[in-house]
């Protein structure tokens, strides 16, 4: 798969950028919320989670897309699950080896990347219908969008929490931040 002309390049760029704003997994599609809320107590955790999810997303998207023509339609979902779960296991082992502190902080949410709806959603809606290269860029964009969104939530929570509003670091703070962020985005969209 070689990028032949300029038009093709623009197409890839569009696939890449749509995950960041127009179809942001957290704020627009409202997918993958569980990790987004649970690990956003600090910016480091959020970034770690974002990188882990992006890694799984990019690889599972490209593998699934390369198998899209040989997978029987009826058992495609279990096949997706196996591919995704394999990459999650790789991330789990890598993280335990090279970033044990982060692995401990994220805890149960590392294996739970398997059931993150974004990854399954992209596999079903995009990777099973598009070429390997576009799926790879789609995965990159969605991963980046996810990372940006949860980092944004984490930043707000951490700053407010350190300023003395302790409840922001506790579970209610996560839900409150996300609720008002989404409301704010809706407001901005309407004004445009």
């Amino acid at each position, binding site marked *: 798969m070689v990028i032949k002309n300029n038009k093709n390049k623009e197409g890839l760029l569009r696939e890449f950028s749509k995950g960041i704003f127009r179809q942001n997994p957290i704020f627009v599609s409202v997918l993958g919320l569980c990790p987004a809320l649970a690990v956003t107590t600090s910016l480091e955790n959020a970034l770690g989670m974002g990188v882990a999810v992006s890694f799984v997303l990019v690889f599972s998207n490209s593998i699934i897309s390369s198998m899209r023509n040989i997978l029987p339609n009826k058992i495609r979902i279990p096949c997706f699950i196996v591919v995704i779960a394999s990459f999650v296991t790789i991330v789990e082992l890598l993280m335990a080896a090279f970033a044990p502190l982060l692995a401990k902080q994220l805890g149960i949410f590392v294996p739970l990347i398997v059931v993150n709806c974004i990854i399954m959603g992209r596999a079903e809606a995009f990777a099973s219908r598009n070429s390997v290269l576009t799926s790879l860029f789609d995965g990159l964009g969605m991963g980046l969008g996810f990372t940006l969104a949860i980092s944004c939530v984490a930043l707000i929570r951490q700053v407010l929490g350190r300023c003395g509003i302790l409840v922001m670091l506790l579970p209610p703070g996560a839900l409150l931040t996300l609720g008002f962020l989404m*409301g704010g985005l809706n407001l901005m969209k309407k004004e445009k």
Partner: protein
Amino acid sequence: MSFAAVLSIIVSMVFVNNFVLSKFLGLCPFLGVSKQTKIAAGMGIAVIFVMTLSTALTWLVYRFLLIPFNLMYLRTITFILVIATFVQFVEMVIAKKSPLIQRALGIYLPLITTNCAVLGVTVLNINSFFVNGRPVYASFMLSLLQSFFAGVGFALALILMSGIRERLELNNTPKSLRGIPVAFIIASLMSLAFMGFKGFVF
């Protein structure tokens, strides 16, 4: 297995460490199927059922398959496959045997496979009731208990939320907050209320 230990698991799972409101597991169905109380109750029962039985299955698989062959690192991949297969199987059995249950629970079952609360509770059971690859005393019963009441806590939060959202439909919410954003804000207030149970841990 003393009475105090059992009681502390129950209170912790239903109130103090409620899966939805303090651990953020299973948020997608929590927001997706909490518009009507009747539907929420159906989903709650389906989740309790699947959680308890898949815990039994994954516990057995972990204890008698993964530990003897030293394959503990395959935990995630095995568990998700066991859960997905089990849910599919239940769906088929129900469709064949009982149209009544099929009508009540049928539409919720496929949604449950990707419910992170189910995989979450199975992993949590392994984390809390196995020490260095050996099951603790009464590990199987404790796992079942923990997952059953985790399911009850999930159902409780879901039904409470649906009651609030039913009333909210009639209210005048600011336009930009309608739908999901206000649901998050309500969930946040509920979570704040559930934090009041923190002192219950004993």
